[in-house]
């Protein structure tokens, strides 16, 4: 049992920052929310979405590995995720070009992902969150390897997502740049 007696709720347009020391269960919590780990008990729900859609299908999950193929170009990778994740018209969000513009990768569109730096790969992974709309973003250390300017750009994208009524649950050690985020501290006495 990694997590026990944990309860939280998040209303539309809010962000939750999950903090705690290494090994406290931040990533475990996110994977359990995404349905990638079985829960021993308890329930998770998302109110107000389409009734037949399960929570994982309404979530973006971003972990340490970014789900991109090194052999394909940035554009090919994002074209694929755009087609695979945005299947209905209301899931279409930004075009691939616009998403790459938001994270500042417009100049390396046709470069193979494998030649990019760690920070650029991370920005390409963040662009995946923008090409298809999901109400819930589950982010595990989203700011790893990002420079100052990219963090500000991504903070702006997160604020815009919240303004659209989206939810964010992020596990991080660093400030996300979201002023009104709730905080959930794991691994402490509570």
């Amino acid at each position, binding site marked *: 049992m990694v997590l026990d007696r944990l309860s939280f709720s998040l209303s539309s347009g809010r962000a939750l920052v999950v903090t705690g020391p290494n090994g406290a269960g931040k990533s475990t919590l996110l994977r359990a929310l*995404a*349905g*990638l*780990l*079985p829960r021993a008990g308890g329930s998770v729900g998302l109110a107000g979405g389409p009734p037949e*859609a399960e929570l*994982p*299908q309404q*979530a973006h*999950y971003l*972990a*340490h*590995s*970014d*789900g*991109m*193929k*090194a*052999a*394909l170009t940035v554009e*090919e990778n994002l*074209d*694929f*995720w755009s*087609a*695979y*994740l945005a*299947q209905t018209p209301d899931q279409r969000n930004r075009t691939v070009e616009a998403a790459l513009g938001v994270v500042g990768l417009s100049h390396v569109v046709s470069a193979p992902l494998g030649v990019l730096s760690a920070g650029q790969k991370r920005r390409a992974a963040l662009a995946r969150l923008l090409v298809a709309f999901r109400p819930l973003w589950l982010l595990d250390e989203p700011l790893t390897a990002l420079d100052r300017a990219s963090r500000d750009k991504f903070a702006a994208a997160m604020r815009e997502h919240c303004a659209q009524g989206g939810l964010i649950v992020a596990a991080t050690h660093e400030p996300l740049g979201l002023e009104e985020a709730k905080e959930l501290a794991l691994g402490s006495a509570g």
Partner: protein
Amino acid sequence: MSSPLAALFLREWRVARRIGGSGAMGVVFFLTLVAIVPFAVGPDPNLLARIGPAILWIAALLATLLCLDRLFQADAEDGSLDLFHLAETPLELAVLVKCAAHWAATGLPLVVAAPFLGLMLQQETMALLGVVATLLVGTPALTLIGAIGAAATVTVRRGGLLMALLVLPLTIPVLIFGVSAAEAASGGTVPFDAPFAILCAITLAALALCPFAAAAALRYLGE
């Protein structure tokens, strides 16, 4: 590219073509296996003509398995597999499309190369046609059965050998009916239709069952 499954096929195809040309690698392995057999059994044309279909089938089986071990492992390592779990498209369909793209990139080149290698083994025209027809029908079953092994060993580092151990016994029916149909095509007492029809049935059964088995293994190991 609008359809998600078409997009997945295109992505898998591009990755397969770009990473070391795994299709070409499989064909070269196939060629090497077929080329070393006469060194082992001797260059007697009658003997080679008789065992040729069996050699081509075993070589195709091993070449297919050689290329399969990274089918899901690459996706598990780069995180794509987690995203396939989350997506609306059922994992079974994603597995099926990945197998289809993998077969198109690695299985189909084997089928195309088989008649040329058959010439090295003293095969008659009818025997060549038999080998090509049985490989065309049978290699998708090998890919699909192999996908179960690839899914079951997705968390094992260097799981290629373990995968071969798991998968080879399951491919025996494909091998039996593939080889007997290929041999029947060049004459003999057994009619071509019966083993070929059973081979077709095995492939259809694999098409219906293997994506579910592989997806179940991926789900179980993902947890």
